[in-house]
């Protein structure tokens, strides 16, 4: 069995709904208008996607966690250091410009945002697939963008040349923050769940 184009289309719809839910949860957490938009859901070549990412030489803070249960995968929320300080001020309801130094509070903010996104997306996917999705606590990694991203895809990239990757863009209103959000899904468990969903849809 392989992930087909039909599978990708189904997944795209499901993920969009999950991202919408995550968008609301994120806005609520930072008490500020924000939007998360799905940029792509596709099978990508490991070397090509990491080549793109290696063009970003910025230093970043990333919250990475694993999804366990019937749906397996990993999630990464990654933001440049200066963006993390802006996010921290929103999250702490401090005037913008209050946080000036990247410290354990900034790390905790990034970690918590990762947690909120994972819970929101995990719940949404669990509901759509009728399965359990159990996120692990997020771990913080501070490093170059390309290095953090490589850590996300390393295990899967060792086994296969293509990975099933979902990328979303964040927009926080009235700010220039850009950040990355990736959901890396295990192809085998995803293919099984999508096939079950397809069958149940045909049966109704």
């Amino acid at each position, binding site marked *: 069995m392989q992930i087909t184009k039909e599978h990708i289309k189904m997944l795209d719809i499901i993920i969009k709904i999950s991202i919408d839910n995550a968008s609301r949860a994120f806005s609520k957490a930072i008490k500020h208008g924000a939007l998360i938009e799905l940029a792509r859901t596709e099978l990508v070549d490991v*070397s090509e996607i*990491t080549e793109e*990412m290696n063009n970003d030489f910025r230093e970043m803070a990333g919250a990475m966690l694993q999804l366990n249960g019937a749906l397996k995968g990993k999630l990464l929320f990654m933001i440049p250091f200066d963006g993390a300080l802006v996010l921290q001020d929103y999250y702490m309801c401090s005037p913008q410009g209050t946080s000036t130094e990247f410290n354990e509070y900034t790390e905790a903010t990034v970690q918590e945002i990762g947690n909120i996104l994972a819970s929101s997306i995990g719940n949404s996917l669990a509901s759509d697939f009728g399965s359990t999705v159990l996120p692990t606590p997020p771990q913080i990694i501070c490093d170059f963008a390309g290095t953090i991203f*490589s850590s996300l895809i*390393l295990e899967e990239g060792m*086994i296969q040349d293509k990975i099933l990757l979902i990328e979303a863009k964040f927009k926080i209103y009235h700010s220039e923050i850009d950040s990355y959000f990736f959901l890396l899904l295990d192809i085998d468990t995803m293919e099984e769940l999508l096939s079950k969903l397809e069958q149940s849809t045909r049966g109704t």
Partner: protein
Amino acid sequence: MRLIVDENIVTVGVGDLKVAKSPKTIKTSLGSCIGVVLYDNINKIGGMLHLMLPKRNDREGKLSKYADTGIPLLIDLMVKQANANKKLLTAKIFGGAKMFNINSELFDIGKANAIETKKILEKMNISIIAAKTGGTKGSQISIDTNTGIVRCRIFGGQAEEY
């Protein structure tokens, strides 16, 4: 994604390799992977391999992911396609950090990558004239094919030249 388009910069992804001639710069970001940089200083030809694992064994997948198949492949491409002189090639190696990983079995893959890389280069009679491996942080490397100088910046530190 943020993409910087510069014709003279060639970026290498994970499990991939690139060869370029002067005046191009080849670059990549490393974690537990090893970056192998080969250079022919007379013909000014550089090659960079971003390898993920020490040995291919029975695995399928691109040869450039592994030290034991990727390094010979890089040399082959540099010699046969770019007309580099194998006898002039020297090597510099970077990366192999002990990175954070969710899977603890991969926790020290960097060290295994570095050991196998040195072994293969020795077997291919290519001298390692510089090495900066290990640590716990990522690094960014770039080779200027005009000079052969590799700039390496480890996260949290300043760039150094090798």
